[in-house]
């Protein structure tokens, strides 16, 4: 199980590596995060603190943080496949598309998302854990950009 999970994550990492985020306007992305994305993430967590989960995903610099944010937000993981349809994800996609030249954004198949939505109740805790990672990565990004 762990082996397959690692393979899956490696595939996602490979997808992310197609864009390196080095040419993004980090200042404007940070501003957008503080204005709109942060509130949407908080709303998703619905009062649950990100520190209630283990946060072990480290990012070294702004491009690294954005790459990991992109990975977790737009690529489904085992136990949480629907984050890309959430408001914070839509805002993230819009921000990155605007502020990162050449970033194509992520197209989400609506039919697939609807099918997965049925499982949302079961996977909420896993998704919250994922979003707690996202929050910590965004915080780290805003501290260093």
């Amino acid at each position: 199980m762990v082996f397959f999970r690692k393979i899956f994550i490696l595939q996602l990492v490979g997808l992310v590596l197609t864009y390196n985020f080095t040419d993004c306007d980090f200042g404007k992305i940070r501003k957008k995060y503080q204005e709109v994305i942060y509130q949407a993430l908080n709303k998703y967590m619905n009062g649950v603190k990100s520190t209630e989960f283990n946060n072990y995903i480290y990012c070294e610099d702004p491009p690294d943080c954005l790459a990991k944010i992109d990975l977790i937000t737009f690529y489904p993981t085992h136990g949480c496949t629907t984050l890309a349809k959430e408001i914070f994800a839509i805002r993230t996609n819009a921000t990155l598309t605007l502020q990162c030249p050449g970033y194509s954004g992520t197209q989400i198949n609506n039919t697939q998302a609807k099918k997965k939505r049925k499982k949302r109740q079961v996977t909420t805790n896993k998704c919250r854990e994922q979003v707690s990672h996202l929050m910590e990565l965004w915080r780290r990004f805003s501290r260093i950009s």
Partner: protein
Amino acid sequence: MRTVFLPCAAAALFLLGRVTASGDAGQEPVLQVRIVNFNFETVRVTWSPSRYSGTNLTFVYKLSSDEASRPCCNYIVHEGHTAGCLLEARKDEILCFSLGNGTDILFRKCEWISAYLKPSSPEDLNFRWHEDAVTVTCSDLPYKRLLYEIQYKSVFDTEWQSKEGETCNVTIQALDSEKCYFFRARVKTLESSYGSDTYPSDWSKVTHQQRGELRDSCQEKRLFPKFILICGMIALLTVSLLLLSLWKVRRLHKCLMPSVPDPKLTFPGLFELHRGNFQEWIKDTQNVSHVAKTEATEQECVPEETLVVQLQKAEAEMPIVTTGPLCPATEGEEASGDASPVACQPPQGGEVVSLGGFTFVMTDNSYMLL
């Protein structure tokens, strides 16, 4: 570009693997653990000793930049047992640690140490006055997304007022440079960058400023007792004047309206037994024969002070009351020749009253009520 990101991806995978092995994602904490990151220099992790009192828990940790886990080498000891660990921090990174009792792992956690940041308090505040505004500056801390809060108040204010800035360069407007102001500063974190579990820094030392100059103090303590003393003296004076005027009013009232003696006390039995009928009362008590004659006259006897004359029953049969010039004998009296031999004798230093064979001399301020 792929090669640039591969180490990062590998690191992320490694970290994910670590947590999968520990299996503690979303797990309820067994111990109450508190983390404080002092200015990214020292991290203090303490745990509640109540549940595991009497046991020495071991603390093992690993920072993102460490290659391997290491045991705590600076324990905080409480009542002979380990209650915390102080560890050196180098930068904004992730701390993974575990707490164990022998070989059992009781608690495991990975956290960004920035989530528990307590910045150091600002030092060396500088003040630049320009008319009615002051700009407070200090050295910025070496990390971003902080709020520098300046609080100020004058000697006349009870509450502090606040102004914040993202750098330690905060201008406060609408001040009166003649007044003496207190200033203090602290550093807080932005919630969107650090989360809600951080701590504000301690307040800096209070600085006193007046007319653009540094003061040792704002003389708040000296001014205040002086004010209280003056108020107290004014209050005391007012109360004294009030009491004095009250006393004067009473005296005036006494002068204008002197107290009238109560006849009930002067003539016992007059009202109780004779319903105020003086004739009956006098007959009953003294059997005075010529009282009727006295009554017939319309002489006015102005009382000055009451002289109470009360006879014993045994003496009551004996006549007689004779008054001096205050109540001169009537014509009828003179005609009947019943007048007492001592009646209307000229007073010797006062008027003479004869009663039952006794003669009394009354002074000017005495009188007799009949």
